[in-house]
């Protein structure tokens, strides 16, 4: 809320009536088309944020979801390019599997460097984002470019079989079901398995984890494989559900937004679903502001940064809450 109010000066600086701006934003949350679009936009956010709950819980700062998402999209697209003729029942599971692998492997590299050599994971995961984005650009400007694409940096359109089916009765693609299933799976893993318990112990204290006989290497690798894998799925959901091809700039920073979502949801995967849907609405609002009022899309980033700043600050205040004891 404070985040919203504090953007008013920014609208004024840009010469935009704040009332008109907020009207645009609210229309997104109150119309059927606005909500549908928000849900669709949130799907990659949900998958990524759910995945991020795992490494963050163990104190591994995976800032690389963006790159893991791109590598998932690459792996999914690779399947379409290799098997263009196969029926949906074959190609969709293949794309899901390889997207998970692609993102997962991209996530395992910094995990290995961290667990083995103590290489700072914030920096390595970030560097790998830049590399993954450039790798996608290389593919779509170079070897994977559509010969009939008039020189635009994109692959040919996916055949209908390689597109995620629409959930009957809506216009939302079935990536939403993947996101919900992932959230339940991660919730189950964290709450009811030994492995989830180990993640939490490692997050509290690396030393305690070591004395409890855990293998930090294995734990980090597995956690980051899953986290990267879910981001990879997000990449698949993007290319197969929305963009329907691989092209330059498929994600406007979903991987970074997902960090904020996971943090706001207090690393609870089910909570991440709720917060993620709100952020989907925020992204659609950003589009509306851009088209309706000619503002830069980065307005959304301002919102997100402010929200995160306030949450970081407020987190501390809640830790030091005054307790009134009765008796």
């Amino acid at each position, binding site marked *: 809320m404070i985040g919203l109010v504090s953007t008013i000066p*920014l609208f004024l*600086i*840009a010469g935009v009536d704040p009332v008109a701006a907020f009207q645009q934003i609210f229309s997104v949350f109150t119309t059927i088309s606005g909500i549908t679009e928000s849900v669709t936009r949130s799907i990659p956010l949900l998958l990524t944020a759910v995945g991020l709950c795992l490494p963050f819980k163990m104190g591994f*700062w995976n*800032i690389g979801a963006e790159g893991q998402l791109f590598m998932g999209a690459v792996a999914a697209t690779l399947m379409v390019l290799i098997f263009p003729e196969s029926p949906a029942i074959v190609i969709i599971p293949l794309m899901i599997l390889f997207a998970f692998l692609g993102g997962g492997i991209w996530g395992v590299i910094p995990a290995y*460097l961290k667990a083995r*050599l*103590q*290489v*700072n994971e*914030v*920096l*390595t995961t*970030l*560097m*790998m984002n*830049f*590399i993954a984005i*450039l*790798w996608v*650009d*290389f593919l779509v*400007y*170079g070897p994977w470019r559509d010969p009939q694409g008039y020189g635009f940096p994109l692959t040919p359109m996916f055949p209908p079989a390689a597109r995620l089916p629409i959930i009957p009765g809506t216009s939302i693609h079935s990536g939403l079901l993947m996101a919900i299933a992932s959230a339940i799976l991660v919730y189950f893993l964290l709450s009811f398995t030994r492995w989830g318990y180990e993640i939490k112990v490692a997050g509290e204290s690396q030393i305690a984890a070591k004395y409890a006989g855990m293998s930090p290497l294995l734990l980090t690798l597995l956690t980051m494989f899953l986290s990267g894998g879910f981001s990879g799925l997000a990449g698949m959901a993007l290319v197969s559900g929305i963009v329907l091809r691989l092209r330059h700039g498929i994600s406007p920073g979903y991987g*970074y937004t997902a*960090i*904020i979502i996971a*943090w706001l949801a207090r690393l609870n995967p089910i909570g991440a679903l709720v917060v993620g849907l709100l952020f989907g609405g925020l992204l659609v609002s950003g589009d509306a502001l851009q088209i309706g009022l000619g*503002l*830069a*899309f*980065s*307005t*959304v*980033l*301002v*919102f*997100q*940064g*402010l929200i*995160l*700043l306030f949450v*970081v*600050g407020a*987190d*501390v*205040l809640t830790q030091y809450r005054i307790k009134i004891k009765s008796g």
Partner: protein
Amino acid sequence: MSVVDSSFVISLLAHAVQAGTPLLLATVGEIYAERSGVLNLGLEGIMIMGALSGFLVLFRTGDLTLAILAAALVGALLSLIHAFLSITLKANQIVSGLAISIFGLGVSGFLGKPLVGQIVTRLPPAPIPLLQDIPVLGLVLFQGDILIYSSIILSVVLWFVLFRTKLGLNIRSVGENPSMADSLGVNVDLTRYVCVLIGGVLGGLGGAYLSIAYTPLWIEGMTAGRGWIAIALTIFAMWNPLRAILGAYLFGGVIALQFRLQAIGIGTETPQLLLMLPYVVTMGVLTIMSFAQLKKRLGVPAALGTPYVRGE
């Protein structure tokens, strides 16, 4: 043939110094913040806001001094937010820094939109008489601009302060063992605030160098990860401002190399692989440094990233 080669090398080296200057300023600033125990991951956001405010003020007023001051001021303000959150509120430094980076990238894109495509007169070169006539070195180093010279002098001065003065000893002790420093009468919070502010000012200046000297244009996201590379460089420099000079120019060289290679026709079709170079090199350097680090602690401040609470 040999003439082409030597001119290629000299132009590469001169470009390396230019490309390295924003990195040097940001790295030396981050060294101060980290030496005092505060990790500032907001550097990318600070640099891009420095780039924007420098460009904006230069575009509006045409006054280079004002532009440089504005960038320093904006960098200081942003770092003040981080300092408040991480020192006074003792918030999570990683999340606070990330928030500032996201915020800075957002605000700069938002406010910079009308500036896209505008051009300003760049910071003019100021060759140093006599020194510029030294073969090779003169061309590489002494035909630069005022910010290049200042960044080198500043790095040396800040090295001297950090390692040869009482103040520097205080800063390092706050980063190594804050409760010990506190008991010896050093004001831990104040020292950290000052160091984070120094980091913000230099980060803002580094960003401004990009937009008013290196490429006098405003492009959204023009820092392209340089803030993150600078944080990696603090590790490479082992938190030592003198080594930062070497590291920054080395990375400047990597950035310069990709452009020079393109200029002679390598990778013009798909430049993306060449553009990956700085990021790949950063990862490589981090890995090598960690190998070395495992054998011997190389200057990493012991209290880096942990808030100081009295009585813990």
